[in-house]
């Protein structure tokens, strides 16, 4: 269970959100600039809020009033940022293995890397260097690197924006099964409302730094649904 009350200013932008996420998979939905990345960075511990606290599974990750701040690497939390920040001087295997612990069991190591890469469909990229990957390949490797650490909490910031719809859907499905089996709570920022439905995820709707709604997609995206369906039908019509 992830619980937080956060208050953070970035220039004119003001993020002020307080909520409790209990679902296995939460989708943070919102337009460009709504504050999705800002929120995830705070949760991951990459930034500090001006005020507020974050607790996950009973552990306090951030508590400004109590001067508590747990380092990003200690939160049991993995974060796939919007730009896949792969280490350019390491090949894909070394990137994926970077966060794996303990570091003394080579077979365990290699096993985890293979599992993670297979899951994202990047098994043949082992020896490549990041600059030799396509945009979508880099994103998949970044996801593999995050799940290889076996986090308790996984934060994803538009992780499949460089993949086409079918590929992203297939990947999400596989990922969902794996994460469920491994008991990982996931929070994913996206601007694809359809993802929420496909995943059967809880939806947190961000608007301008506030939480506009929280609940199942059918409720939260009621308005949005109209717009999306009409657009989808339009397109479907145009396609025909």
């Amino acid at each position, binding site marked *: 269970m992830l619980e937080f009350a956060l208050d953070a200013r970035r220039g004119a932008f003001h993020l002020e959100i307080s909520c409790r996420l209990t679902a296995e998979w939460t989708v943070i939905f919102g337009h460009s600039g709504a504050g999705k990345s800002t929120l995830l960075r705070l949760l*991951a511990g990459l930034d500090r809020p001006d005020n507020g606290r974050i607790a996950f599974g009973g552990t306090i990750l951030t508590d400004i009033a109590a001067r508590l701040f747990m380092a990003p690497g200690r939160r049991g939390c993995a974060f796939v940022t919007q730009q896949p920040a792969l280490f350019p001087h390491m090949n894909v295997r070394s990137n994926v293995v970077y966060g794996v612990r303990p570091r003394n069991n080579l077979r365990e190591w290699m096993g985890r890397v293979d599992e993670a890469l297979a899951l994202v469909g990047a098994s043949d990229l082992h020896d490549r260097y990041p600059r030799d990957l396509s945009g979508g390949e880099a994103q998949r490797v970044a996801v593999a690197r995050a799940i290889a650490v076996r986090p308790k909490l996984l934060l994803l910031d538009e992780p499949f924006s460089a993949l086409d719809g079918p590929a992203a859907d297939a990947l999400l499905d596989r990922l969902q099964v794996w994460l469920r089996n491994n008991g990982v709570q996931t929070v994913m920022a996206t601007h694809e409302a359809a993802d929420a439905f496909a995943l059967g995820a809880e939806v947190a709707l961000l608007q301008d730094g506030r939480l506009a709604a929280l609940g199942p997609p059918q409720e939260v995206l009621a308005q949005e649904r109209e717009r999306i369906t009409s657009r989808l039908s339009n397109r479907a019509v145009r396609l025909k």
Partner: protein
Amino acid sequence: MDWQAFFLTLRLAGLTTAILLVIAIPLSALLVLGRSRWLAVVEALAALPLVLPPTVLGFFLLVMLGPRTAFGRGIIAVLGHPLAFSFSGLVVGSVIYSLPFAVQPIVAGFSAVEPNLVDAARLLGAGPERLVRTLLVPLAKRSIIAAAVLTFLHTVGEFGVVLMLGGDIPGATRTLSIVLYNQVENFDYAAAYRTAALLLGLSVLALIAIYTTANPRGDFRRSRRA
């Protein structure tokens, strides 16, 4: 060519460079990753050895390490002889004098590493030590080479500190730079030209080897795809 002096010089420069990298890498990491305002002061102090003429720095070290200070007497009590006029003394002097040549480029190199990558490593649980070893050092490789080259070459050519602190003892403190200086002072220009030519020739070869491998030109500048 005084081969004894030649190998002594290589040993001195090599050791000084190795010690300085061991000191400068963690120090630079602290300067770059730390958040305290006092670090600006530390950074300033680390640049200071350069300001004094080497002979004067050598003189201060000579006095400090000699039997006339408590510190120096302590060292003599431990070693049985003063640090000055020994090979170890030269190493100490060279390390102090060359500190800025190592720290300055490495701090600059570490500063240039993408903060996004540092974040990514932290998220994956890397502590400071691992951050430095697996990320900062390899990504600032070019700056570390620059630091090593500056330190090594400068120690080879180092003269003032060695002159003051060394006392020109063959096999212990007579470096090639002293030999070369003495040849010039003694109007033995032919020998000086020979020594200098050999020194320059070897250095050029070593440096070309370094730069050809360190910067595979063209390839190095290849931009990331996608």
